[in-house]
């Protein structure tokens, strides 16, 4: 990659030139209706050339790697930059940087074959057929690398793997559904047998569900449910939006809420490119180093992300946005969490989460694949799905008990996403606003 980057940079004539490279193999195996439906793989390399002439900036992406198209991409990005009006927020490319060491390529994932994936899928299909349910699953695998280089001597390189494996099991009459899944960088952490067991158990337990009135309930959110909500917060920690009055972290009258208590005192949120099995590149798309960062400590807002432009304007050091989301945990088990509920709901995961009010971090969405009523510390019956309308800030103020953190598959599409490491939570109030008939 260094050689490719150098070759591209050798064509450059602009004041500033940056090359960003991603290269890798994406492979998948998909099942539905108790059979393997599709499988395959794609190899690709993308090159992004960003040229700046003064403060005129433009980029070109291409995946053609011969000298002629690469040189053309460089020329085109320079020509586009010349055409572009000045961007007053553009800052010159950084010089050479040092990065924390992050080893994120796991051979267990990189060496997976079509046959390995098909056998893993077959195992799950057999278990589903044996109990007369219908399985649909997805194994998503990536192995590759990324690099950033510029003409000021900066070069950053990161190799990584990722895998997500998820499973939905439904009854043939469509009256119940269960889901389970894992995500990681290391295939050996993906527990296919456990995923099958959990999804089948959820599907079994959620049969014969009955209605529950909408309302505000105590709730136990399983880690995947927490992760799906928290992944929506990753962009909220932005200083500019806060300074400009567009964020939950905006202070009335101007400025940010840095240093203020914003959540329950047990909430600590960090990001860390070297977090085991949740690694990310130790650099941003322009090659700035990313380091372990504490965003919220014991409920107090400690950091916001500052782009280089906004940092220079505010006279503070720049700070890249979070690349993974790590919420600290407690030691409560799932039984402890359920046992602490007088009357409330257990939520497996969510679906179709969308923002309603970014300033208050209010999101709407629906429960999916296993929702249960808890009474006096025990699950008493399966209940229908609900739509929720809930402020995530209020959620993080209403915590009562915290489980152990784990990496979850937090994307709705069950594909490999930014690593989200979160615990299960017991909260005192979660608003279920209307019933959904969906199963």
């Amino acid at each position, binding site marked *: 990659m260094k050689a490719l980057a150098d070759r591209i940079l050798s064509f450059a004539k602009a004041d500033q030139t940056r090359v960003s490279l991603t290269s890798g193999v994406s492979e998948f195996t998909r099942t539905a209706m108790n059979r393997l439906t599709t499988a395959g793989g794609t190899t690709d390399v993308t090159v992004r050339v960003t040229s700046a*002439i003064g403060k005129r900036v*433009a980029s070109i992406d291409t995946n053609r790697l011969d000298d002629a198209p690469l040189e053309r991409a460089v020329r085109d990005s320079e020509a586009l930059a010349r055409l572009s009006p000045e961007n007053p927020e553009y800052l010159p490319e950084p010089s050479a940087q040092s990065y924390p060491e992050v080893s994120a390529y796991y051979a267990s994932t990189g060496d997976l074959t079509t046959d390995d994936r098909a056998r893993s899928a077959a195992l799950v299909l057999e278990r589903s057929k044996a109990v007369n349910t219908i399985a649909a699953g997805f194994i998503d695998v990536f192995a590759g690398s990324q690099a950033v280089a510029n003409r000021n001597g900066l070069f950053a390189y990161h190799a990584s793997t990722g895998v997500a494996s998820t499973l939905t099991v439904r009854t043939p009459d469509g009256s119940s559904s269960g889901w389970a899944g894992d995500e990681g960088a290391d295939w050996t952490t993906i527990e296919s047998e456990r995923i099958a067991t959990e999804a089948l158990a959820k599907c079994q337990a959620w049969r014969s569900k009955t209605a529950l009135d909408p309302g505000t309930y105590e709730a136990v959110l399983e880690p995947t449910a927490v992760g799906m909500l928290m992944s929506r917060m990753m962009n909220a920690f932005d200083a500019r939006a806060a300074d400009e009055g567009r964020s939950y972290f905006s202070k009335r009258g101007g400025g940010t809420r840095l240093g203020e208590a914003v959540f329950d005192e047990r909430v600590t949120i960090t990001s860390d490119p070297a977090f085991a099995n949740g690694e990310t590149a130790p650099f941003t798309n322009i090659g700035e180093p990313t380091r372990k960062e504490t965003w919220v400590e014991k409920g107090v807002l400690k950091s916001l992300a500052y782009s280089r432009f906004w940092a220079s304007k505010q006279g503070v050091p720049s700070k890249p946005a979070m690349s993974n989301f790590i919420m600290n945990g407690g030691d409560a088990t799932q039984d402890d969490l359920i046992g602490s509920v007088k009357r409330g709901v257990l939520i497996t995961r969510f679906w179709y989460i969308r923002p309603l009010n970014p300033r208050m971090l209010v999101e709407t969405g629906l429960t999916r694949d296993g929702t249960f009523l808890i009474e006096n510390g025990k699950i008493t019956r399966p209940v229908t799905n609900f739509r929720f309308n809930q402020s995530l800030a209020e959620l993080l103020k209403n915590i009562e008990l915290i489980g152990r953190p784990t990496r979850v598959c937090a994307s709705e599409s069950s594909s490999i996403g930014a690593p989200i490491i979160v615990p299960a939570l017991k909260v005192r109030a979660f608003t279920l606003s209307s019933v959904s008939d969906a199963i």
Partner: protein
Amino acid sequence: MRDDRSTVSRRKFVKLVSGAALAAGISDLGSAAVEAQSDTAPGPDASERELALAALDAARTAGALYADVRIVRALSESIGTRERQITNVSKSESYGIGIRAFVGGSWGFAATRDLARDAVIRRAREAVTTAAANDRITPNQIRLAPAEKVPDGRWITPHLVDPFAVSLESKAELLFRINDEALKVKGVRFVTSSVTSLKESRLLATTDGSVIQQTFIRVSPNVNVTAVAADNSDSQTRGATVGPAGMGWEYVTGLTLPERAIRYASEAVAKLSAPPVEAGRWDLVLHPSHLWLTIHESIAHPSELDRALGYEANYAGTTFLAPPDQVLGKFRLGQPLMTFVANRTEPGGCATVGWDDEGIAATSYPIVDKGLFVSYQSATREMVDLVAPISTLKKAPGHSYGQDWASIPFPRMPNVSLQPAARNISEDEVIGAVDRGIYIEGDGSYSIDQQRYNFQFGGQTFWEIRNGKKTRQLRDVAYVARTPDFWNSMAMIGGRQTYQLGGALSDAKGQPMQLNSVSHGCPIALFRNVNIIRTA
């Protein structure tokens, strides 16, 4: 280091680079675009055609019962602005080949950016090996419905002006004019605007003997205006109510966005002081710029055949319109005034094509006929036989689509559109039929469950209707409904003169997730007694 042109003044430069002169500066992307500016559909590139046929041969020799090959070269250009500055100028090109092979009853797919002949042949064999491994480990029994042979198919999106032949400078000028107009309105603090242009050459070759060369052109403008209260205590955004289109640059210029921006800006400011809605039952008049998304989510997605069969259970979900034998020709989704058509031939539609990715010609047919659910869409060759005996759908309707060369083709939604009233009913006439209601324009926050029953939709602007007239703006409005109840509450629809297309370039579905471009046409429509909630 710099060439002479960087010293030319901006004004002169606009002239210099306008139109085709851009090609002088942009060697490859630009000139390719200019060449294809004529409205006649080009045929396949000879070397691409040869490569595709070689891949098919390799797949057949390796044991594929069927194979298809797509060589796709996609160009995109985006320019984004914020207030009086450029935030992003980018162009991208992605070029590669995807090979899909069918062995026994199983699929395998392999794609690569490497278009060297030996690399392509290797990948074609790998597609076959993958299919064979899947069929060995988990044997399948599926059958492909027949496809007609199209030995030399050619199609291009109808357009007047190729968006890649329009200079970046004039695009930026347009966006700055939009921003300037919005910023003139007191209380507006932020405005962003952008336009994305897409152009794609797609060559399909199949072992059925079809060779089809198509060129797709799409443009997508966007504007967002944000007003902030003087004390920072509140902010309100008003987004554009224009969608993407399968058209040329003439679509963007025809929208008169600078004029619209003034209205967006004053409505954003007015939203700050608009009263929140009173929750409860209201009549709703839904403008096409809003209604398209409700159609997309609650009519188009649930009528996808692959959902009904269970293909999407692990992500997009299943549907309330199932099982097929219990709903086809039986399920009453709405009143007799309601007819929806699945249409890949709709002029200006983002999903409009000549043929699909299995070589099936584009079709148009009703899926909801006078309120009755009669047919599914999103059907491909492997699934159409499963419903043919009980459906009006007897042949594959041409709904296979892979986002790009790197993505396996699978069933994707065609344009699904609500047909206007036969009589020329105007917007005023529809509003006039309401005593107490809310008029919603533009799409806002949206969410719907995985079987498409329970939905909640916001919008961009909300106007209170009193005694048949639009009055003041309201805020924090969303409606929540159960899909069949909602559509059965439709009381009136506008005529052809109120019909418009809305749409999206990024409809997500499938694992690995792929994006689809799709449009939905509809007239203005009135719904009675809908449940309104207050969102803040």
